[in-house]
């Protein structure tokens, strides 16, 4: 215990700094992923053929091991002198988040009770009004579940991004492994876990805040 206390005394500010880096990387990636994934998921509900194709591609993306995807990013982004560091990691994380976000948006809206949709059309709502007033509000719990999956997943994957110099809590773990330093490995892992738990809890709160009681039940 004493050793831990000493370790934290020396390293706590660095751990906090890396945690913030980690959170910023993941938040930015998720933010951009939402801007792409949610409109795309909504659009796909109107185009069955494209939906199947896009969801297939998104599924395949998710099967690529993260270390391999980061590896592939290096030569591609080297072309614009950004081969390692923040940019390739950020792009990889955006790609990884697409599947849960697109799929949950798509299924959430597709699964809105067809009678409700029928009533909305029959009452004279335009497509946009129907989406904004009926379909999205009623699909919100499913969409938010996708976002939460993406966030928690990305917090984990971003650890690997340390290998391509993107910083974040992965730095502690990779250093710990190469120096055979268990303190670094364990503190890095715990910080990642806590970050994931907190992020998920915050998103759940946001979800509850914006979902009408009637739908949440």
């Amino acid at each position, binding site marked *: 215990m004493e050793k831990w206390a000493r370790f934290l005394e020396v390293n706590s500010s660095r751990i906090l700094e890396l945690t913030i880096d980690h959170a910023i990387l993941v938040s930015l990636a998720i933010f951009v992923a939402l801007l792409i994934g949610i409109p795309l998921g909504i659009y796909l509900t109107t185009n069955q053929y494209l939906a199947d194709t896009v969801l297939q591609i998104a599924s395949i993306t998710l099967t690529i091991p993260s270390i391999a995807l980061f590896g592939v990013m290096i030569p591609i982004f080297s072309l614009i002198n950004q081969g390692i560091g923040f940019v390739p990691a950020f792009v990889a994380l955006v790609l990884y988040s697409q599947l849960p976000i697109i799929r949950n948006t798509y299924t959430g809206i597709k699964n809105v*009770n067809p*009678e*409700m949709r*029928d*009533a*909305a*059309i*029959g*009452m*004279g*709502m*335009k497509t946009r*009004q129907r989406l904004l*007033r*009926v379909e999205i*509000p*009623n699909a919100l719990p499913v969409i938010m579940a996708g976002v939460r999956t993406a966030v928690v997943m990305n917090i984990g994957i971003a650890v690997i991004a340390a290998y391509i110099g993107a910083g974040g809590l992965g730095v502690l773990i990779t250093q710990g492994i190469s120096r055979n330093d268990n303190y670094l490995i364990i503190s890095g892992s715990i910080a990642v876990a806590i970050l994931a738990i907190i992020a998920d809890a915050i998103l759940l709160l946001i979800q509850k805040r914006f979902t*009408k*009681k*009637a*739908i949440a*039940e």
Partner: protein
Amino acid sequence: MISFNHVTKSFGEKITAIDDVDFTVEEGKIVVLLGPSGCGKTTLLRMVNQLESITKGEIVINGENSKDLDPIELRRKIGYVIQSNGLFPNMTIEENVMLVPDLLGWNKKKKRERFEYLMKLIGLDPKDYGKRYPHELSGGQQQRIGVVRALAADPPVMLMDEPFGALDPIIRDKIQEEFLQIQREVKKTILFVSHDIDEAIKMADKIVLLRDGKIMQFDTPSEMLAHPKNEFVSQFFGKDRAIKSLSLHTVENLREVIGLGPVDESIQDTKTIHIHQDLRNTLSMLLNQEADQVIVKDEQDENIGTITIDLVQKYLHFEIKGKMSASQEG
């Protein structure tokens, strides 16, 4: 007024869902589309607000061919009620009811007044229920809300697709009565889909009986019961159609034709029945209770006579069977 002029809907060459349907719903009347499942009644209803396309023929709504109207505009002018009520769970009762007025851009005050008026129409307190969500209401209340939501922007025409189908018989009966009461006040032109014969007889000014997309008969309920045009119609209404037709007659009709029995003051604990009650209910009341008579009360709540099974039978013989046998001979 809604006129169907030789309306046909087909899918490809072979399948004809609606086959040359031609009839008119008069202003302020209820026409019930009745028939077995798959006969095309819902399709026909949904053709009016352009949820289904028309292959041939035209539907004219209050003088305008529906094809010439913008579907969005058209739908906002037509009240639409569906079986599962289709209330939006993310909106409060007030938001649900005031949806079409909102789409039409009514101001707050006008919406508020309309909402209060409509809620009073169905006997629910606007203050209490306005802020609630649909899941907090009973099935019967939700269906009532579904009906007033369709009435919200005061559309001249209403389409009702088995609106009371999901309710239990007791509540359904009550809501049907209530709806007829409202209809007497609002006098909408209504097209109503049902598969329930009793409901059709009760609600309809006229019934369209459909089979495989064709009209089998278009008539008033009593005509249809008394003079079925063909085998299908008489079979559809069943062997007990004489009893069914009792629901079209009231105690008052019976009094006018054969008169009521005298009130016997010595009999205690007899049930009473209102003079406007229909004879089918009266008959089941007589059959369900042990006494052989019920006392008839008029509007002033005075006892004006009694009714017995014998009297109902006599009336049935006179009025209904007489008409039916006449039609069979003819």
